[in-house]
């Protein structure tokens, strides 16, 4: 079966090519068929390959398929090789599956857009790049996918290009992620000179041999790679682009900025886990970044009024959890959370998109409300998604994945009570803002009239995703609660098992605490936003609260900070130097030449007596030289 591997990325790419070249001449039906169909085909092929992979695990633990040698310069010979192991299988599955659903959803969602084919072309290209990213055998090919998804993200954020704000957001996204990518590129250089190759399997086998535990080179490499991951995954300090990226259409937010692309960082780190394992410092930094991000983003999400921005901050925050898990060494937990998060966050975005579409492109949650009965399907699916996001105990998939991370945050080898506490606080905040959003959108009185109701094309994917958001959690259950380890067993082929600290027998207390914090959060939001909204008004009287609110609302002021520290000086410099200061040098030379010409020309006065004087002076000079020398 592994011969079909190449089809997985190539199908979406073919879709892209057809749509890009001939999209103008195709009818909308065909566009949708090609766009969604190609991804769906991939989504069908994946399980086929996946089942083959699981039932007859290859001896090497992976399938790989070399298409051609990309280039060969001396020892540097990256190949275009696809590489499938358990880790990439999970990712490929999520990408194609959710991708297909979102494509189907988009066929309905974008139905009235004039650039229908462009949208699908970009989406297909995105799926292709993302697949390439996770299927890449070497870091260079991975980098290709990495930048490719960046491009598609750019294209899709700025999809509605007439509004310059969208373009600005797209640029911001691209450039900020590019900063991370640049660091990552340097990381690749280091890796190449250390190992003489960029092929991931080779690196992973060579690294423990060549580097000893805690080597500073390992730390540097790991940090450089981390920088790439931080950029793509919108983690501190490069998180500022993601909220703005919501300018794109909702399916885009769902696919790229929630489910897949933003988790590329998680993929990269787990893919290169051996390097991170060699450097405890780097790993700790990963954990700290994750914790800090989830905390900061959580509070920001609390204050947003744009529904998509709430979700965006929640995405940042949830990826923070994944980083936290990676940092403490809970590899499988991170990937598990990634998968679950992909389901429910895609669901939430798609549902939010449906809401927005229904309310005439209204993004402000304070202008929504009372949609519970008007849009029942959306309501229920959104509710399921929110429950999963808020990690509603026992019944939501999010509970299982997040709880695992919280537990590991303390218990795993790299764990730390502080990290755990931040995680717990984050869970609490998550519950608060999720409930807040639910209440404001679906309860209360209707503030905006409903226009367009979502059709089947849109609701079916929602229902499928809702199903997964509820039940996908059961494939991995805590060991005091069924101890079902389907998922981590699978990943154990690739990722190391999470090592617990000594003396950690039970996680029950932790589960109860997590449960309490979630419920407490929900209750708090219930009180403030449903039962006694006047309390909010009261709080708003306080200046401190207002300032804090604004501070959180602006995403902890990071945008402003970067603007004043980096953007403005560079733009100022660029504008000051618009006419190129170096050119002044040459203009100076010209100026001098012309002045010389003018003064010399003055000597050509036309006066014969002056000319003779010149002759005499010449004679004097010659004779003086003879006297003196």
């Amino acid at each position, binding site marked *: 079966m592994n011969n079909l591997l190449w089809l997985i990325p190539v199908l979406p790419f073919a879709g892209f090519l057809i749509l890009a070249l001939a999209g103008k001449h195709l009818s909308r039906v065909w566009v949708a068929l090609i766009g969604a169909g190609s991804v769906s085909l991939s989504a069908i092929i994946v399980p086929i390959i996946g089942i083959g992979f699981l039932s007859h695990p290859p001896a090497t633990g992976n399938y790989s398929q070399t298409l051609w040698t990309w280039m060969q310069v001396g020892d540097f010979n990256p190949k275009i090789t696809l590489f499938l192991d358990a880790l990439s299988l999970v990712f490929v599955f999520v990408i194609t599956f959710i991708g297909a659903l979102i494509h189907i959803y988009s066929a309905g969602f974008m139905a009235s857009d004039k650039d229908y084919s462009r949208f699908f072309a970009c989406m297909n290209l995105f799926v292709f790049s993302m697949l390439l990213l996770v299927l890449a055998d070497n870091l260079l090919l991975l980098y290709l996918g990495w930048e490719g998804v960046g491009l598609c993200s750019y294209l899709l954020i700025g999809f509605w290009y007439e509004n310059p704000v969208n373009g600005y957001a797209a640029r911001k996204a691209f450039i900020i992620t590019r900063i991370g990518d640049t660091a990552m590129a340097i990381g690749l250089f280091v890796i190449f000179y250390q190992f003489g190759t960029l092929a991931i399997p080779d690196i992973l086998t060579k690294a423990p041999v060549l580097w000893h535990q805690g080597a500073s080179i390992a730390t540097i490499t790991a940090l450089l790679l981390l920088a790439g991951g931080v950029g793509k995954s919108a983690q501190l300090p490069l998180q500022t682009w993601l909220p703005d990226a919501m300018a794109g259409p909702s399916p885009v937010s769902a696919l790229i900025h929630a489910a897949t692309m933003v988790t590329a960082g998680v993929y990269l780190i787990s893919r290169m886990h051996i390097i991170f394992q060699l450097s405890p410092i780097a790993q700790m930094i990963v954990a700290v970044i994750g914790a800090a991000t989830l905390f900061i983003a959580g509070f920001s999400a609390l204050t947003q009024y744009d529904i998509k921005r709430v979700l965006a901050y929640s995405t940042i925050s949830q990826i923070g959890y994944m980083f936290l898990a990676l940092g403490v060494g809970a590899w499988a937990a991170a990937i598990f959370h990634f998968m679950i998060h992909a389901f429910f966050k895609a669901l939430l975005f798609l549902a939010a998109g449906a809401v927005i579409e229904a309310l005439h492109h209204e993004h402000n949650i304070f202008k929504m409300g009372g949609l519970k009965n008007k849009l029942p399907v959306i309501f229920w699916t959104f509710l399921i998604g929110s429950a999963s996001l808020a990690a509603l105990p026992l019944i939501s998939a999010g509970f299982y994945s997040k709880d695992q991370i919280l537990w590991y945050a303390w218990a795993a080898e790299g764990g730390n009570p502080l990290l755990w506490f931040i995680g717990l606080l984050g869970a609490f905040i998550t519950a608060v803002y999720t409930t807040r959003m639910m209440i404001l959108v679906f309860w209360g009185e209707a503030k905006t009239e409903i226009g367009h109701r979502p059709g089947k094309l849109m609701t079916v994917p929602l229902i499928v995703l809702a199903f997964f958001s509820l039940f996908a959690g059961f494939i991995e259950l805590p060991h005091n609660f069924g101890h079902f380890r389907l998922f981590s067993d699978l990943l154990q082929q690739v990722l190391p098992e999470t090592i617990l600290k000594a003396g950690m027998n039970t996680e029950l207390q932790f589960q109860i605490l997590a449960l309490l914090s979630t419920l407490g959060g929900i209750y708090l939001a219930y009180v403030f936003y449903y039962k006694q909204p006047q309390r909010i008004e009261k709080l708003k009287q306080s200046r401190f609260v207002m300032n804090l609110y604004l501070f959180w609302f602006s995403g902890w002021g990071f945008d402003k900070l970067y603007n004043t520290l980096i953007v403005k000086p560079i733009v100022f410099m660029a504008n000051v130097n618009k006419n190129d200061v170096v050119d002044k040098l040459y203009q100076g030379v010209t100026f001098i030449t012309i002045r010389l010409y003018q003064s010399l020309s003055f000597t050509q006065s036309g006066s014969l*007596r002056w000319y003779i*004087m010149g002759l*005499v*002076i010449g*004679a*004097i000079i010659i*004779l*003086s030289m*003879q*006297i003196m020398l």
Partner: protein
Amino acid sequence: MDIVFYITAFVTVISTIMVITRHNPVHALLYLIISLLSISVIFFLLGAPFAALLEIIIYAGAIMVLFIFVIMLLNLGKETARQEKEWLKPKVWIGPAILSAILFVELFYLITIADVAPYNLQTVDPKTVAISLFRPYLIGVELAAMLLMAGVVGAAHIGQHKKMILHRFLKEEGRL
């Protein structure tokens, strides 16, 4: 002999200074003739009688007459002298004079530091000159003839007058 030389030299220098400072062209010309005559005396003293004669006959005689002709032709007289007086202000001549003085000082220095061996003065008589002129320098004489021819042809062409055009719309008769 020396004393004669010094007196003549003195006369030469003075008359030459007069040449370049006189306002009236005719006066200047006369001073120049004096200068030429005294130089011819020096030639004589230097043992070059033939050169001395030529100096008087050709230079003072022929060439200077040319000048006089022209001065008379153009009727340069008092008017010119007045103009010259105006032109010849210290402001005009002081700079050039200083330059010339510098040049002279340099020449003086360079000539006096030269160490010329003493020698006995010999008269080079016209015959020797003539032989030299028509033996080795024969081609030179021929060339001098061409030189004079160039002078004559040139002067003849430039000296002749024709209808002169100051501007193509504004024609004016130019006459001697």
